[in-house]
């Protein structure tokens, strides 16, 4: 590692703490040395470092995409810090008792149930604080079932064959600008492996939180569901309020082997910026899954946070009879901008996909659905149904729909429907006449509008999602 970087880090120690937790944060900047540093910090084998460096080369030759319906100032990738870890975790805790109590307090504030005894819901949690996975709960019980659920940094050491085989197999390094960046600098994330025929005994869950200033978060998640297995996974995200924008560029790869099923749910509540549009997270995420024969991948997302969202969880329906689903609620308020949707790439015969997208725009926000449905020349008998609805609240916001529909097989059937409407005065008045105040009425109408998607979420998160919408809509009606 270069001495310069080392010395810079040492200088940086004294400054920039946000909570009481001491962090070890790399100074801003991105070059090969930084990548070597990250890799060395994690004690990575040479092949992992080589993979990162290759991605970095690719990234350097790429241009930031411009096509999305979002506007933000050009990101200076040299002003971002690419590594930050709570210092007290430099030696990873062996058990919960070793975790810094302040950190646990932070999670409690966020309502994240870290302690196993608090986790009545039976959810196993991996928590990623800034760039590092701090604790993974319930590991014992999962191991019994043969399920691997650990930080990806750990998987690199323990399961190098799986990582080598699958990392980058669904989202290649050169897939897109942010995926390439993530491949070069990814910090941590979750790794899940469900062996053949196993039904994961509990919901798996990861909470992400950006704490430090000027840090980017680049986690990477890899889920492999072997033949006939089944897993349901939920991620939640939050960040503290800050005036600067922060970058979050994650990659999620899902592999569903024959007859396997993966359900991936996201409740995204990154800091959206304030009422004037100051601050907030840039959420530029690549999520994609591949379905083998008769496999099924189902993406459910509830997106209320982030200043700018750029995200298209996708399914490659490679195997015959495989199924892809996308259920999304994206709510934008104030100056938020979202360009989100999905891609369903039908390659196999009789593959099926369903897209239900509900966009809600309030305040001065812009909310776009962008989706691709592609019926390849081999997609005999494939079907897609897309329903994409927009709800407008207020007269300064925008709702947009950009569906790309491509079909190269006559027996493939594609149906796309979209509507845009507003919360009507008559609806509000009926609710008021029954004793509800306008905000409550809007929240009920919005929840109703989203019902089809909420139904897809695990029970306890559906409730959370509903509350989240309510909070996010505050102040949106007169």
């Amino acid at each position, binding site marked *: 590692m270069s001495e310069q970087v080392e010395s810079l880090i040492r200088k940086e120690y004294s400054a920039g703490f946000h909570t009481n937790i001491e962090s070890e944060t790399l100074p801003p900047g991105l070059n090969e040395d930084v990548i070597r540093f990250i890799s060395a910090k994690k004690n990575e084998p040479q092949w992992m470092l080589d993979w990162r460096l290759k991605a970095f080369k690719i990234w350097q030759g790429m241009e930031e995409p411009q096509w999305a319906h979002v506007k933000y100032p050009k990101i200076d990738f040299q002003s971002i810090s690419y590594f930050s870890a709570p210092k007290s975790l430099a030696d990873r805790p062996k058990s919960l008792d070793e975790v810094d109590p302040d950190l646990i307090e932070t999670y409690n504030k966020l309502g994240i149930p870290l302690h196993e005894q608090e986790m009545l819901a039976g959810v196993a949690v991996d928590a990623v604080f800034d760039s590092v996975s701090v604790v993974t709960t319930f590991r014992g019980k999962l191991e019994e079932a043969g399920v691997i659920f650990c930080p990806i940094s750990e998987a690199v050491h323990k399961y190098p064959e799986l990582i080598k085989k699958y990392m980058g197999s669904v989202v290649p390094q050169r897939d897109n600008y942010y995926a390439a960046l993530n491949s070069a600098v990814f910090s941590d994330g979750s790794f899940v492996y469900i062996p053949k025929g196993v039904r994961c005994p509990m919901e798996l869950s990861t909470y992400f939180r950006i704490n430090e200033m000027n840090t980017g978060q680049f986690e990477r998640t890899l889920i492999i569901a072997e033949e006939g297995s089944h897993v349901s996974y939920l991620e939640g995200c939050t960040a503290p309020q800050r005036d600067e924008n922060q970058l979050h560029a994650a990659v999620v790869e899902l592999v569903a082997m024959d007859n396997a099923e993966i359900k991936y749910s996201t409740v995204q509540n990154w800091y959206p910026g304030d009422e004037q549009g100051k601050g907030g997270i840039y959420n530029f995420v690549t999520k994609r899954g591949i379905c083998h024969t008769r496999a099924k991948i189902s993406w459910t997302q509830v997106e209320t946070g982030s200043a700018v969202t750029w995200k298209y969880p996708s399914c490659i329906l490679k195997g015959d009879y495989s199924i892809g689903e996308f259920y999304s609620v994206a709510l934008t308020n104030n100056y938020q901008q979202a360009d989100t949707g999905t891609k369903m790439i039908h390659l196999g015969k009789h593959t099926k996909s369903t897209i239900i997208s509900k966009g809600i725009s309030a305040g001065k926000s812009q909310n776009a659905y962008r989706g691709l449905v592609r019926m390849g*020349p081999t997609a005999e008998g494939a079907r897609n149904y897309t329903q994409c609805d927009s709800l*407008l609240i207020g*007269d300064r916001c*925008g709702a947009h729909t950009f569906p790309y529909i491509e*079909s190269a097989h006559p027996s493939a059937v*594609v149906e796309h429907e*979209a509507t*845009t409407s507003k919360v009507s005065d008559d609806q509000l008045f009926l609710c008021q006449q029954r004793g509800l105040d306008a905000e409550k009425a809007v929240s009920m109408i919005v929840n109703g509008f989203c019902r089809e998607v909420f139904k897809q979420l695990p029970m306890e998160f559906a409730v959370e999602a509903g509350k989240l919408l309510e909070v996010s809509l505050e102040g949106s009606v007169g």
Partner: protein
Amino acid sequence: MSEFQSHALMLAQQSKGLAWLNDAKQACANLWQAEKWPTRKTEAWRYTSLQSLESTLWSVPSEAQLDGLPDELMALDATRLVFVNGNFSSQFSSELPESLTLFSQASPAEQQAILTKFNQVAKVEKHLFSQLNTAALGEGVFLNLSANQRLEKPVYVVYIHTDTGASDYVGSRLLVSLETSAEAVVIEHFITLSDASPMFNAVTELDIGENAKLKHYRISMESEQSLHLGSVHAALHANSQLTGFTLATGSRLKRIDYHVRHVGSGADLDLQGIYLPKHNQRVDYHTNVEHCVPHCTTNEVFRGVISDTAKAVFNGRIHIHQDAQKTLAEMSNRNLLTSNRAEINTKPELEIYADDVKCAHGATISQLNDESLFYLVSRGISEAEARVMLSFGFVNELVENIAVEDIKVWLRPRMAKAFGQNDDVVRHLIHD
């Protein structure tokens, strides 16, 4: 700069002079020259390659003679204007009423009127091939109706191409201006008489004044080898009405754009389109409807039947600006793929910045319905005929809406023939 892009500037020089339009022509030549040439990464050209423009020495054809009027013309009681290879043919054209004039024959007053209207509705800076059209402009038609004026007969403009042995660039221009409460019916018809491969570049501007009503039909059924880059630009003022109909069979390269702007409250657009590419043909329709003011309505319906190894593109965009409250807009695009190797790319877009609006769009892609097919077969109809009947029916619903009976009569058999050459399978459809 692509080879074609620089070569096209020569076309501009070849086109004969209308000196009073030189400034506009030059401005567009400059724009054209400065354009970044589109690639597959350019959103508007994502699915359509301009490669077939390249490696060809395009030239502006000189006057050509026709022995007689081709059979392909519609039998219409109309004021007819015939162009052959881009040149006006007075021999085959009707006598022009006062409200109609050729650019080349415009009086100074008319020149002035043209100059104030020309490229006002068409936003040339946003439309590549309108730039070329203007830069290489040789002749144009100006239809100018004053307030309350109502044309007795439809205006039928026919653009004919006949083989010259060269690679012909055929430009055309139609400028329609309707003042308050004026009414007109305009038909544009593109015809090729050989298997040659000319390139049509046709621009139509429709300025529809307050409370005015225009019916505009645009039929493009040229030869398989031809190329066609066309655009229709319309501005709808308060309470005006545009009923548009467009039909295109495929060809080597066919790209037709509709840009419609609602600029006055209470305007109403009804736009229907049919595309029928087969063999290895291409058709690419891009429509863009802008609602800039409140209380306007748009109803847009496009249907396509795509056969063999043909490819079609439909990109329909409805853009509702912030002030366009109470907009009602609906767009529907339905596609029938009748072969294993046919392809359709459709992109119905809604961009909405106003809140009190009701919008919907729908798109479907499917093949012929097995049940319907079986129903017909079970009534003793051959499967081949049943297929043609169903394909025909799929688009004929739109033809039935055409208000000018003679167009319908002309179109039905030709549309049927587009689905089946064999008389056996179409005879029941072309009875009348």
